[in-house]
């Protein structure tokens, strides 16, 4: 029975937090709102630290015994620091889909582990859940548009979910001729979004199981959101311990204390599901249970991040309405990551419907 991280894994996570504390202050997050190159130095650090090597966990010649739980713990640390780097998009979401291709994907994953950036096109128009936005024709060309592709503006490679006859294919398209990246507004400019329009030849493609390809992405975003939720909660707690009104610190009032306690419960609910789904991802074959577990983890993490940031803004009062205070950076990240790859209601609904009709979960 899986029971969460061991002492070594917790130590590695603490080390990641320490690196981020030094190299990812909130001033860097703010810089990334306007400077499109602000992410690059921190990305070099992430590559040097070996975080991108997590793309190769459990496979490859130099397998270091890393697991998906190690990835999740690293992404949680990044979420807590709002790291403006494409680690989630490239190593969590895109590499997660590429890994379902099997041993043939080793070269591509090695490129990502060495710092090339990929992103996954998974959002079709007119749909709340991720799916299959593009098509792959018989000649091996990819066509169509995908919405809200995260970090596409930083990416070297597009990983595209495509319909191919009546099946789903995963196609790899280098970003260049035939791939149009149109930056879209993002509530969190440090997690840039784009509309990606493709008419280009795939350098590689294979038939995949759609749910298996998307599940790692749901989990990666969930891990980040747990970190962001906890970061916002910490900020609210700090304020509640020091701000005085009516001669008492406001955290001594149950109206504030109980709201923060409920936030803590929401974070632990999500964290339990994220760690559990991470263990399931490393067990093969997981089948539909895996998508359900990752979807519930994402839904719970959405809930936690939205609740923690909303409460934090409330606890901070007028300060929370200002540009100067960092809480809006957390709020923005929570909004964007909670909206990508499925809001809670649509995820809970999908899993609940399958359960009620006698399926997985």
């Amino acid at each position: 029975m899986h029971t969460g991280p061991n002492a070594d894994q917790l130590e590695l996570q603490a080390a990641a937090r320490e690196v981020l504390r030094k190299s990812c202050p909130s001033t860097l997050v703010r810089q990334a709102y306007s400077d499109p190159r602000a992410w690059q130095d921190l990305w070099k650090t992430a590559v040097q630290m070996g975080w991108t090597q997590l793309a190769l966990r459990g496979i490859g010649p130099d397998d270091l015994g890393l697991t998906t739980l190690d990835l999740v713990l690293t992404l949680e640390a990044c979420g807590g620091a709002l790291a403006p780097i494409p680690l989630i998009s490239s190593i969590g979401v895109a590499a997660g889909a590429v890994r379902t291709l099997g041993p043939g994907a080793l070269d591509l994953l090695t490129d990502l582990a060495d710092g090339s950036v990929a992103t996954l096109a998974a959002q079709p128009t007119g749909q709340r859940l991720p799916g299959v936005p593009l098509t792959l024709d018989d000649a091996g060309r990819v066509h169509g548009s995908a919405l809200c592709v995260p970090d596409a503006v930083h990416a070297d490679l597009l990983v595209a979910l495509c319909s191919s006859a009546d099946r789903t294919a995963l196609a790899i398209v280098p970003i260049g001729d035939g791939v149009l990246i149109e930056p879209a507004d993002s509530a969190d400019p440090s997690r840039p979004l784009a509309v990606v329009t493709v008419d280009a030849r795939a350098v590689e493609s294979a038939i995949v199981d759609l749910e298996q390809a998307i599940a790692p992405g749901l989990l990666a975003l969930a891990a980040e959101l747990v970190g962001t939720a906890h970061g916002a909660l910490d900020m609210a707690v700090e304020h509640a311990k020091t701000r005085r009104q009516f001669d008492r610190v406001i955290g001594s009032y149950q109206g504030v204390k109980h709201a923060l306690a409920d936030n803590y419960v929401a974070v632990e609910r999500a964290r339990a599901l994220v760690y559990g789904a991470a263990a399931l991802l490393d067990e093969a074959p997981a089948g539909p249970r895996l998508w359900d577990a990752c979807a519930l983890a994402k839904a719970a993490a959405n809930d936690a991040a939205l609740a923690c940031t909303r409460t934090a803004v409330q606890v901070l009062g007028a300060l929370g309405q200002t540009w100067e205070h960092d809480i809006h950076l957390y709020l923005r990240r929570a909004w964007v990551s909670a909206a990508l790859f499925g809001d809670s209601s649509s995820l809970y609904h999908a899993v609940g419907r399958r359960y009620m009709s006698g399926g997985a979960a």
Partner: protein
Amino acid sequence: MSQPDLTELRDEFDRWLTSMLPADYYDNYSVYRWDTGLRREYQRASFEAGWIQPTWSREQGGRSLTPAAALEIRLQAALRSAPKLPNIAGPNVAAPAIRSFGTPEQVARLLTPCLDGSEWWALGMSEPEAGSDFAGLRTRAVRTGDVFTVNGHKIWTTQAHESRWAVLYVRTDAEAPKHKGISCLVLDMHAPGVTTEPVRMASVSDETFCEVFLDDVEIPASALLGPENGGWQVAMSALGHERQMIWVMNWVETQRGLEALRSNRKGACDDLHSAVGALLADSEALRANGYRALHNESSGRPSPEGDVLKLFGSLALQRTWETVAAALGPAAVADPDLEFERHDGLAATIYGGTSEIQRNIIGERLLGLPKG
């Protein structure tokens, strides 16, 4: 314990449980769940087979199992809807207190009948003016030589009218700060001056509340459980033991509710799909957090999850039965079993520490917020 050993142990328990249950147990569970005779018999057999407190030694009704192995047995028992202990306070609260704090004489006299169910126990904690504020209790015990003379009034004392003994908390030092002037005594419910009056419950229940009136009840000093004025520690330790088990029961209830949702619904339930998905998340998070708490405790790490389980589990339980009720439509209020579950769910956010107290604990101990 290795995984194959654990599987073998669970199989052994399974076979034993099957041998204990009537052939039509599952077909007529809604009748058998109230069958006190069957439940008494089950408790005695559990004690004799070493399943009642599996981490304890063989002579204390256990099998010296690890906490992780004991949890597997507890989960398996709950999953198979094993008969519920007829007097939970005995084996799960009084027995751990006797074992941890009792004198050799107390252990020799009290432990076995408590575990095998031949003597039931009540918990004399709450008073009319001391509910959540347990440390504010007013029942006084005045010591003269080797005898305490006790006067006071306990209330919400579950099953006191059927109990042979009570773990009684009394004020022995009126001058000390309120946590430090409490002692724990073993009360003989047959002693002169003890009057017990059952309170009628709002719902069908076999865990009836009582009022217990104590008029000049004489209790020998040899009945002190733990040190004089050390009752607070006894209470916290005994309740901590109970708190570790509550989540298991809550989890199994969420599983039962989810199963009922899938099989008993009336008509279309499309509008409930999101609620069902959220319940699936609640149920799995409860189980995973329970395991994380156990794992952290046995690795000697702090276990913040443990403080979350009571609050979260009881709320998940309430959400479960309310969703089941919605799926049944008007048939929900014509179903006495469901009526019981809903009442029982509402009690879960009260007993063992109300949700409000749990939120204070999370706010103060885990988040470091000051007391109000």
